């Protein structure tokens, strides 16, 4: 094509007019196509990285045992490996007899060596979760047949080979097969007891606490309203004392039940031998998941993989968020985003309606429009600061003064919460909605408005019955953009309500069901927290990708829902224009 073009420019064969590359517009084709390709490449690359890293996190890998030249043994899962150039100091640290061999091994590879990061777990014994193991340190590598991976509620993973299953301190199974069978048989009932215990701990104790707190607030309120020592305050104090005594009795009852459950569970233990040869007793109640990594077939691996995903999306986090699930964060993200959409859409649509339908064009309207567009360029952290200052400290503090005076000085609405976060993000995304809605309104043909006016409709009737329905798909587009922008925003949320850990969901079964004042967890903030605030950063890193994948999936789901809704609306209004 380009050869023909350059020939045509000089040769002028036959009657063909001279052609240049410019006449074909080919450079522009390449330029525009190249732009698109680059953009696609970056997006696809980013997504591919997130998907690759995120989906692999939960896949169970083999447990490898290395016997080291030093005589020690380590066991665990290989997290990653890399080639590196060992410094001279590394060799100097080795004993005399190994140094020569290590040096020659490295020299044969051109000064490089392979090292792998081994997830060794057993934090309470070694004080570390991961350990680098270099090629030249290894004497032998084995895949122990019965190496078990324990995922525990505390202190991370544990790797070891089973020795015995203990009930009440005495062994009831001694071979690995029997121990494994016993674990499978008992873990169900132990887990059920643990769940019951957790239910008692959170729900039941929480309910009693709530009643106690309410009684305390009534007493405090009476003291504030009528003064200390007033008869009303005395009555309230007596009522509180009564509630307190009942509550204390209930607490004792619940604690007794918890203790009974704990004792029942405590009798089940597993005796495990670590790679270093230590024998450790693990309580079965502390274990979330256990599997013999090297004996799993494909089906077994898939089962572990799926069960980890299920835990991830449905459970609460543990181990400073680096293990367990992110359900509160998913819930917080979705509730906050939906709340934000509910707040921003009516606001934005009303504002756009005034600007486009009612306001007379002029300098003021143009200025307002430019200001709105500029608002979209304000850094989001500024919105966060504004939200904290205005919503939390001014509005929230006043709400507290008026309605929650008895709880003061503990703030109720006077601090970050899901309502303030949603309002802050609504402000942040307002320009998007206004601009999209204005464009949608402008695209409604004037002939339709005239037709409506000619029928004797008022301005508002025309807007409500003709203009708004017709502009609805465009308004939905604005909402989709707002959702995409709002759901992925983190910086302002850190100031107005997103927290590291908030086990109390903003929507639950205790009255008034929706707790607008509660702080919440957010996937975006969770990613930041995992990636930069985690103590066990190596274990948290894969979780960063998994959480990112989940956040992208949630935003995509929200968007696709809105796109589907918009498509339905479009079909209704755009069937065919003759």
């Amino acid at each position: 094509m380009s050869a023909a073009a350059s020939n045509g420019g000089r040769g002028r064969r036959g009657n063909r007019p001279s052609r240049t590359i410019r006449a074909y517009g080919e450079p522009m084709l390449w330029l525009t196509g190249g732009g698109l390709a680059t953009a696609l490449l970056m997006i696809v690359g980013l997504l591919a990285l997130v998907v690759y890293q995120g989906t692999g996190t939960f896949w169970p890998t083999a447990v490898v045992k290395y016997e080291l030249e030093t005589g020690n043994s380590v066991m665990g899962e290989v997290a990653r490996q890399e080639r590196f150039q060992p410094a001279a100091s590394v060799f100097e640290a080795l004993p005399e007899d190994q140094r020569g061999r290590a040096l020659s091994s490295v020299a044969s590879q051109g000064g490089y060596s392979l090292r792998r990061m081994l997830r060794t777990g057993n934090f309470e014994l070694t004080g570390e979760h991961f350990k680098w193991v270099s090629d030249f340190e290894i004497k032998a590598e084995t895949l122990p047949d019965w190496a078990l991976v324990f995922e525990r509620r505390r202190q991370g993973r544990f790797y070891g080979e089973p020795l015995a299953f203990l009930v009440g301190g005495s062994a009831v199974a001694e071979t690995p097969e029997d121990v494994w069978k016993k674990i499978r048989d008992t873990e169900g009932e132990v887990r059920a007891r643990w769940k019951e215990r957790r239910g008692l701990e959170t729900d039941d104790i929480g309910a009693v606490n709530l009643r106690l707190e309410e009684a305390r607030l009534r007493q405090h309120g009476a003291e504030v309203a009528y003064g200390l020592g007033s008869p009303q305050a005395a009555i309230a104090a007596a009522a509180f004392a009564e509630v307190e005594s009942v509550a204390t009795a209930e607490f004792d009852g619940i604690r007794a039940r918890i203790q009974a459950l704990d004792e029942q569970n405590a009798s089940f233990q597993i005796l495990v031998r670590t790679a270093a040869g230590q024998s450790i007793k693990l309580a079965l109640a502390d274990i979330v998941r256990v599997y013999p990594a090297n004996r799993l077939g494909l089906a077994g691996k898939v089962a572990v993989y799926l069960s980890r995903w299920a835990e991830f999306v449905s459970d609460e986090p543990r181990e400073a968020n680096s293990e367990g699930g992110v359900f509160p964060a998913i819930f917080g993200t979705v509730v906050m985003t939906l709340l934000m959409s509910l707040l921003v859409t009516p606001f934005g649509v009303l504002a756009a309606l005034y600007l486009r339908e009612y306001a007379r064009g002029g300098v003021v309207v143009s200025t307002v429009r430019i200001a709105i567009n500029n608002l979209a360029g304000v850094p989001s952290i500024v919105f966060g600061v504004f939200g904290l200052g205005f919503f939390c400290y001014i509005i929230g503090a006043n709400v507290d003064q008026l309605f929650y005076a008895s709880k003061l000085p503990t703030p109720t609405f006077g601090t970050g919460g899901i309502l303030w976060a949603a309002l802050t993000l609504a402000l942040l995304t307002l320009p998007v909605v206004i601009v999209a809605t204005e464009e949608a309104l402008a695209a409604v043909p004037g002939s339709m408005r005239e037709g409506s006016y000619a029928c004797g409709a008022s301005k508002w009737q025309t807007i409500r019955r003709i203009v708004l329905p017709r502009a609805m798909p465009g308004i939905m587009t604005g909402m989709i953009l707002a959702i995409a922008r709002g759901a992925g925003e983190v910086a302002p949320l850190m100031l107005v309500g997103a927290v590291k850990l908030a086990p109390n969901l903003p929507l639950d079964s205790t009255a008034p069901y929706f707790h607008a004042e509660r702080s919440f967890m957010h996937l975006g903030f969770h990613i930041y927290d995992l990636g930069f605030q985690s103590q066990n950063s190596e274990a948290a890193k894969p979780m960063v990708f998994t959480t990112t994948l989940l956040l992208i999936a949630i935003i995509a789901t929200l968007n696709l829902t809105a796109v589907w809704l918009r498509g339905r609306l479009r079909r209704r209004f755009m069937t065919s224009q003759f």
Partner: protein
Amino acid sequence: MATAHANMLSNGRGMMSDAATGKTSADAAVPASRSAADSLAAAARGERVATETHLALAAEEAAVEIDDFCLWYGASQALYDVSMVIPRGKVTALIGPSGCGKSTLLRSVNRLNDLVEGVRISGDMKLSGASIYDSSIDVIELRKRMGMVFQKPNPFPMSIYENVVYPLRIDGERDRRVLDEVCERSLRGAALWDEAKDRLTTSALGLSGGQQQRLCIARAIAADPEVLLMDEPCSALDPIATGRIEDLIEELKGEYTILIVTHNMQQASRTSDFTAFMYLGSLIEYGGTYEMFSRPHLKATEAYVSGRFG
């Protein structure tokens, strides 16, 4: 704008020679006869042009009276002292070259021009004797007494049924029986019932262009208006659809007072009882359609209707 004026002016001069050479018997019979060049050139200069109104109109009962109506879009004047009487129950056609103010005049009758920014008017219009432009008039109530059909079919993005009953819906009518009855009556009136009765709940945008225009007519007559305003209702339609609309106008005549703007001379002569010829914002001649097309009083009118200019 200035060049447009100049072109029109030269057109007018072209006809002046025409008028000078051939004096017709019709011209001789009418005492107020003027040459074509006089009125058109005067209109082009922006002077007031006296309308040549035929005597036939004096006998008609007025549905709409227009008195010395002027209209400005910002600084430029679009209508110059238009005075005319729209006879009740008859079809009146507005003809004239593009930009002569036909549509502006039509849209002034139901005050649709109020929506355009910077519009000023002087003079008055009366609907059945009551002023249209009086400050005490409720524009919305006024528009409910008129139906309007536009150049391009503009059905609303809703079902056929809802389109037809729209004027009643905005009045708050909820009675299903009334709505059903109006829907059927209007669709029958617009000759669309047989085609649409089985698909009343489907989107109006799925109809063909001709059907959409008839739907708009059904919508315009749904509220039983006194006057039906039609702004080139057939210009976006094919000849067959145009024929159906013209038949429909024939049927609606008598029941409604119809004011129709058209570019099509044949259409004006076929469908209307009276014809008004406008030029550059002035009403030049106004009379019975047969008279206007066969024995117009003014040379300018004759030139226009016979296709010699415009």
